C-alpha cells in the first residue's frame, strides 16, 4: 500500500510532508526528553529486523498466495509509540530510496499511512486498552488482531483519500474505497495473527522484554498529545485541501458526497474534479487550451467548427515535438557519456 509519486499532486504531497515533519520532530524531541539511551541502538536494529523479516515470506493457508510482515504494530509493541514512529519512518525512507517503493514526494503520505496510524492510533487506543499491564496469550491475540486491522483500514483509507485529493487517478472515491478496504481487511487479519504469534513467542521466551518497553509509558499514563497533534494536523490538511477544491469549484465537495452515496453516475461527477483541476491548470499553464480540451457536450455545441482544427493540428504538432525532444535528450545523454568517460578513466 505504498503511495506513488506519480499519483500525487504537489499540494497533497506537501501537506503530508509537513504533517510527517511535525510528527517526526515531536517524536524525536520526546525521545530525547525520555533519555532512554538504550533505545538508540534498539531502534536501529529493530528497523533492520523489520527489513529482514519482510524478506521471509510465508504461504497463507488455503489461498496459495504468500504474505509477509508490515511491522508497524510489532515496533509499537516493542518500542512504544514515538520510538516506533521514528523507526517506521526510517524504514519507509530506506524503502523509498533504495527500492523505489512509493517515492520521495509520497514519503510523507506513506509515513502517515503506515507509521502514524499503527503507532499513534491503533497501538495506544486499541492494543494497550485490550492487553493492559498483564498480558495473556488471548489478550495479545485479540489486541494485536484488532489493532492491526484498525491500523491497516485507516492506512487504506489514507491511501484512498490522498489519491482522491490528488486527482490524478480517475478511480472514483467509492469504488476505490470498496477495492482497498476488503483487501486490507484480509491483510490486516494476517498481519494481526503474525504480530500476535511473534509477540507471544517472544513473551514466552523472554517475558521481561515485553514488560520493559510498553509498560514504562503506560505506567505514567499514556499521553494522547501526539494523537491530538496528528488529528489536528490531519484536520487542517483535509480542511485546507477541501477548501481549496471548494473555492475553485463548488462541485468538489458535492462530488465526494455523491461519490460516497453512489447516487450519481460515474461520468457526471468526475467532471467536478476534472473541472477544478482544469481551472487550476488554466491559471498555471503557459498554453492554456493546449493539453486540456474539455470533451463536454456544451463546449462542442458552442463552437463546433473549431474542433477538428484544434485536435488534429495540435496533436500532431505535440507528438512530433515530443518525439524530437526525446531524440534530442538521447543525443545529449550519449554525448555527455562519451564526453565524460575519458575523464573518469
Amino acid at each position, binding site marked *: 500500500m505504498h503511495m*506513488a*509519486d*506519480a*499519483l500525487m499532486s504537489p499540494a497533497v*504531497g506537501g501537506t503530508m510532508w509537513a504533517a510527517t515533519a511535525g510528527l517526526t520532530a515531536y517524536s*524525536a*524531541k520526546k525521545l*530525547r526528553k525520555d533519555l532512554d*539511551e*538504550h533505545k*538508540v541502538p*534498539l531502534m536501529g536494529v*529493530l528497523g*533492520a529486523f523489520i*527489513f*529482514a*523479516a519482510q*524478506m*521471509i515470506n510465508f*504461504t497463507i493457508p488455503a489461498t496459495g498466495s504468500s504474505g509477509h510482515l508490515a511491522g508497524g504494530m510489532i515496533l509499537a509493541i516493542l518500542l512504544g509509540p514515538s520510538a516506533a514512529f*521514528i523507526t517506521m*519512518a526510517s524504514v519507509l525512507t*530506506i524503502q523509498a*530510496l*533504495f527500492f523505489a517503493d512509493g*517515492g*520521495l*514526494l509520497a514519503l510523507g503520505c506513506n509515513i502517515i499511512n503506515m507509521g502514524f496510524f499503527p503507532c499513534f492510533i491503533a497501538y495506544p487506543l486499541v492494543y494497550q486498552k485490550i492487553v493492559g499491564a498483564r498480558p495473556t496469550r488471548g489478550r495479545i491475540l485479540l489486541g494485536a488482531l484488532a489493532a492491526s486491522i484498525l491500523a491497516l483500514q485507516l492506512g487504506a483509507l489514507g491511501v484512498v483519500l490522498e*489519491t482522491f485529493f490528488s486527482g*490524478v*487517478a*480517475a*478511480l472514483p472515491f467509492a469504488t476505490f474505497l470498496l477495492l482497498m478496504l476488503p483487501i486490507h481487511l484480509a491483510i490486516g487479519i494476517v498481519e494481526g495473527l*503474525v504480530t500476535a*504469534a*511473534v509477540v507471544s*513467542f517472544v513473551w514466552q*521466551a*523472554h517475558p521481561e522484554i515485553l514488560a520493559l518497553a510498553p509498560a514504562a509509558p503506560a505506567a505514567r499514563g499514556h499521553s494522547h498529545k501526539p494523537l491530538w497533534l496528528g488529528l489536528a494536523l490531519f484536520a487542517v490538511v483535509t480542511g485546507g485541501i477541501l477548501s481549496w477544491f471548494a473555492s475553485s469549484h463548488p462541485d468538489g465537495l458535492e462530488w465526494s458526497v455523491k461519490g460516497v452515496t453512489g447516487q450519481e453516475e460515474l461520468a457526471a461527477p*468526475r467532471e467536478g474534479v476534472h473541472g477544478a483541476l*482544469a481551472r487550476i491548470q488554466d491559471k*498555471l499553464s503557459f498554453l492554456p487550451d*493546449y493539453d486540456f480540451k474539455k*470533451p463536454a457536450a456544451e463546449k462542442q455545441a458552442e463552437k463546433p467548427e473549431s474542433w477538428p482544427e484544434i485536435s488534429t493540428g*495540435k*496533436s*500532431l*504538432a*505535440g*507528438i512530433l*515535438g*515530443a518525439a524530437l*525532444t*526525446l531524440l534530442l*535528450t*538521447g543525443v545529449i*545523454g550519449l*554525448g555527455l*557519456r562519451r564526453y*565524460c568517460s575519458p575523464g573518469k578513466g
Partner: protein
Amino acid sequence: MATIESSLLNIGYLETLSYQQTPLHRLDPRAKLLTTLVFIIAVVSFGKYEITGLIPFMIYPVALIAVGNLPPGYLARKILLAAPFAFFIGIFNPLLDRAVLVQLGPVGLSGGWVSFASIMIRFTLTVSAALILIASTGLNAVCLALERLGAPTGFVVQLLFLYRYIFVLTDEALRLMRARSLRSFQGRGLGFKVFTYLIGQLLLRTLARAQRIHLAMRSRGFDGTIRLLRPLEFHLQDAVFFLGWSSLFLLLRWYNLPHQLGHLLTGLAP
C-alpha cells in the same frame, strides 16, 4: 531465498555505485537532494493530461546517468520492479475516462489513455530521480545533508543505524532460511507456524544484538547523543548545479518545448 540474496545485492550495488569518482559524485549532497526535490515537484505539478510537457524532463535523469556513469539497464529494471502500484491504479483511467481527447486523423485517443500514459511517465521520472540520488550520493551522505538541512538528529541517527544493520540482519535472516530449507524438501511447507517461529527467533537474536551493541557503545563513552562531525562544503559548482537545473525545470514547466518544436516542424500550424 534467491530474492533475499538478490535484494541484498541490490542495496549493496547501489551503494557501490555511489563510491565512484565523477563530477556528479563530487557534488555536495545537499545540492543533489534539493535539486531532486525541485525536479519531483515540478514533474508532479503538471495537469493530469500532460504528456508533451513532461517529456523534456527526461533530460535530467539522462544527463545524470551519463555524467555519473550509472548503469541505465540496472536502473530501468529497478523502476520496472516498483511499477505495479502506480500501474494498477492508473490502468483504471482508460476504463473510466472514455471521452475522446486527442484526435489523430481517424484514431481517437481517450482521455483515460492519455492520463494513464502521463501517470507512467511521471512514475518513471520521479522514481529514476530518487534512485539516481542514492546511486550518485550514497545513503550516508544523504543523511548528512538531511541533518544539515534541519531534519531532527534523532531521525537521522536512526536512519544511519538502520542502514548499517540492514546488511547484518538480512544475513541473519538468510542463514535462518537456508538452515530451514536444507532440512525441508525444496523449501516447501513454510506455513504460518514455522514462519512465526522463524520471525520470533530472529527477533530474539535482534534484541540480544541490540543489547550487545548498546554495551559496546556504553563502554566507548556513549551518552545518549550521537554527533555527526563530517565537513560538508557548499562550493560554487554546487550552487551552479542546483540553480542551473532548478531554473531549467521552471523554464520547462512554463514553456512547452515539444509543442514549440512541433510547430516549427509542421510549418506554423496554429
